[in-house]
């Protein structure tokens, strides 16, 4: 046809690009939606944990105290975690002592190894390693126990029978975990130091007396208490995550398994994150 112009390549390109642009926007929005939903879910869960923990603490202050439940939880959590906490501490003490002694020997100051080991153990490795190993175990155990109770309607039954599930189940676990973890950390500190002193004695001939003298000269009460305070906060975080995840299990036994795994992941990340900020805080004090 004589009057027909050939298609303008620019216009064609623009017309062709228009739906592509729309698709791109839509794709972008769709890819953002799960992200925003995840962010929202994260803040909802964080808020839920804080609210549940605060509620538990507030209710724990009212009669009846539930000291029996608290004592049971403290013994159960402590007893179950004692062996793994000490085992990890012994090997951590052995390894860091060997590493530091090897490094310091290059400068001929291996006799100062006790100073470095005690600070590393008290301020950092003791609380963090204990929280990561024991915490994962305690947190997942709490989620599994409460999650099973949730799917078998036992938590509903506690409420239906006139009791308060938050006070009965969350408060004792929260307090027990906050108290037990520092005790385990203190034990881990001691076991780690003893193991470290023995290994440098046997490998580098550093007398035990010299090792412990440098420990006592270097470590202050603040070094020890900052680690203990950290572990108390880690304990609180672990129990909060464990209880919240357990209380919010859905989807039967499969849901319990999923929640348990999530607890380990969330608690571990929370420990690492809070460790950074707590370290900054304690160093500035």
């Amino acid at each position: 046809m004589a009057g027909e112009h050939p298609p303008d390549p620019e216009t064609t390109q623009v017309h062709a690009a228009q739906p592509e642009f729309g698709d791109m926007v839509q794709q972008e929005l769709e890819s953002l939606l799960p992200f925003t939903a995840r962010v929202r879910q994260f803040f909802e869960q964080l808020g839920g944990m804080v609210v549940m923990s605060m509620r538990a603490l507030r209710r724990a202050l009212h009669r009846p105290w539930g000291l029996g439940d608290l004592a049971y939880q403290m013994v159960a959590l402590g007893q179950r975690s004692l062996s793994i906490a000490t085992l990890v501490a012994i090997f951590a003490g052995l390894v860091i002592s060997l590493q530091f002694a090897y490094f310091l020997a290059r400068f001929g100051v291996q006799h100062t190894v006790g100073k470095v080991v005690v600070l590393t153990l008290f301020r950092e490795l003791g609380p963090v390693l204990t929280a990561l190993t024991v915490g994962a175990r305690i947190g997942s155990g709490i989620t599994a126990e409460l999650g099973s109770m949730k799917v078998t309607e036992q938590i509903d039954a506690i409420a239906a029978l006139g009791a308060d599930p938050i006070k009965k189940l969350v408060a004792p676990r929260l307090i027990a975990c906050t108290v037990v973890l520092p005790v385990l950390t203190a034990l881990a500190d001691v076991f780690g130091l003893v193991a470290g002193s023995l290994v440098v004695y046997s490998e580098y001939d550093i007398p035990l007396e010299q090792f412990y003298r440098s420990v006592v000269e270097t470590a202050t009460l603040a070094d020890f208490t900052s680690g203990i305070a950290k572990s108390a906060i880690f304990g609180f975080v672990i129990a909060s995550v464990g209880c919240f995840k357990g209380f919010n299990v859905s989807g039967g036994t499969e849901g319990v398994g999923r929640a348990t795994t999530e607890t380990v992941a969330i608690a571990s990340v929370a420990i690492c994150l809070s460790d950074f900020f707590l370290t900054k805080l304690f160093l500035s004090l």
Partner: protein
Amino acid sequence: MTPLIQYQDIYKAFGKKKIFEGLDLQIEKGETLTIIGGSGTGKSVLLKLLIGLLYPDSGAILFDGADVTQLPEEGLRAVRKRVSMVFQGSALFDSLTVGENIAYPLRENMRELSEDEIRARVANKLELVNLAGIEQMKPSDLSGGMRKRVGLARAIATDPEVILWDEPTTGLDPISTRVIDELIVSMKKTLGATSVVVTHDMDSAFRVSDRMAMLARRKIVECGTVSQMQNSKNPDVRAFFDARK
């Protein structure tokens, strides 16, 4: 007379799944009302709403004049002391013995009782459900039917004013079913208890009910006495009743 329990214009959804849309139901003091309906229609949800285990999206649930959806935690606990629930899956506490399970509501709500009185009550309730002498057993050692009956014994331990029975006879043998039915009737006769029973077992429903309510299409579509329901022309009721023939 004002009904003891009133569900008023209840809406409830789980995510996108709508359970109730404008549900209304009245339950008189001292009567035994059975709620029937297909699986997944929200019969158990209806019971849980009454004691605040779940909350409606909108609407009011009046118990003895007080709206339980607006009650603070303390008020809700006061309601739960008067209303007891028998759970579908028994919901016995695994870590406690049978005796401790039944004693649980007594220790929580009747602190004035001595240990001897608690022991006597536990023994009495176990006898009522034909399970005398199993106080020291753990729930894991019991059969499904026995667990169910222990759950019943726990629910009636405090002699509550209202008992919510969530499928009390499902999975039980005919003799145990008869025992439970007689128990529901006797709770009404001896204690004057109001019972709300959720069941699929129509024979049991006919035996225990003063009135029946049919839950379908997200609301109560028919409510009446046993004979009224048996002669109902409502298509949902007819379909449900005819399905058992």
